[in-house]
């Protein structure tokens, strides 16, 4: 929902946790009701803040997984074993709890149907989250923009949103997986890290000036962005979102 743009200091607010849904063994989606939420653009994120009883606070950023939908937003969180925030969000937080957040933020890493295509999305692991919001928005808007997703995961069981991606593919949306650590028997797809050759095979060609969005761990993003520039893509058409090591 596009509203009038509002100026104002971003403020922390309390969201209600409505549901917590397991996506994979280590990944959970939190459905939140955010009073007064006025919509967002797909690709944006929220900052989340946790406060312990003694006042200790930590902040992390999480991409919004859902397209605008009233006051409901979804965050998809991967549990990092030595993380400080993600285990709380995936293991402890439950329906009825409240979560402090502010947003939406980030106008740079954003796609909307009005931008058109072609679009190339390259995601590594939980880097799929903001890209999924874009994919869902495309479906919600009913446009057939040429959009291609190259999604790198460690294993088939670990592919986040696997079934939904399969359902949504077609009608201009192409989904390509690469599984880097283990593959199911009979797998004929890519089985290695994203590289220049793979990107060249998937396209779209640099000459079509696609909008490119790359999201995932910093080393993944660096390698993919470098390969895309090698293939002739304009650096200013490549938008990146790196998840640093503090993203736990």
């Amino acid at each position, binding site marked *: 929902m596009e509203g009038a743009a509002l100026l104002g200091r971003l403020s922390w607010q309390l969201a209600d946790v409505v549901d917590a849904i397991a996506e994979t063994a280590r990944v959970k989606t939190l459905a939140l009701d955010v009073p007064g939420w006025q919509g967002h653009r797909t690709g944006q994120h929220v900052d989340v803040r946790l406060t312990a009883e003694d006042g200790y606070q930590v902040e992390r950023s999480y991409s919004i997984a859902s397209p605008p939908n009233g006051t409901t937003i979804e965050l998809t969180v991967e549990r990092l074993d030595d993380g400080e925030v993600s285990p709380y969000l995936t293991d402890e937080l439950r329906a009825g709890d409240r979560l402090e957040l502010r947003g939406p933020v*980030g106008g740079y890493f954003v796609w909307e149907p009005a931008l058109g295509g072609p679009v190339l999305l390259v995601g590594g692991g939980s880097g799929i989250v903001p890209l999924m919001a874009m994919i869902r928005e495309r479906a919600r808007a009913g446009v057939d923009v040429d959009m291609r997703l190259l999604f790198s995961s460690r294993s088939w069981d670990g592919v986040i949103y696997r079934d939904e991606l399969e359902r949504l593919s077609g009608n201009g949306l192409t989904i390509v997986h690469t599984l880097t650590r283990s593959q199911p028997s009979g797998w004929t797809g890519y089985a290695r890290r994203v590289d220049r050759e793979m990107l060249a095979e998937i396209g779209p060609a640099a000459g079509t000036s696609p909008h490119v969005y790359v999201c995932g761990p910093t080393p993944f993003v660096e390698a993919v962005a470098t390969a895309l520039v090698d293939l002739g893509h304009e650096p200013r058409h490549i938008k990146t979102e790196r998840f640093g090591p503090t993203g736990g």
Partner: protein
Amino acid sequence: MDSLMLDGNAIAGLLQEVFVVEMTSAIGTCDSCGASEPIGAVRVFRGAGVVLRCPHCGDVLAKIVRREEQACVDLSGFRALEGASRAGLHGRADR
């Protein structure tokens, strides 16, 4: 390449808190090498405070230190900073 490095987009919330408007689409010009990039594409490092560095030459564009009710901001590494817009903002006014 440094695995600690983030993009300007990662500190979108901090920037909006400090500057009030959405900053990640603003275009900054590096005073050292003259390159121009959206803030969302500059390099971000978290030390004692936040440091923005030019993705081309690596020099410091800005430093931000947050304390409770204030921020100390040095933008002297920018030769120019323009285009901060309301267009990217779908937030809430403070209540």
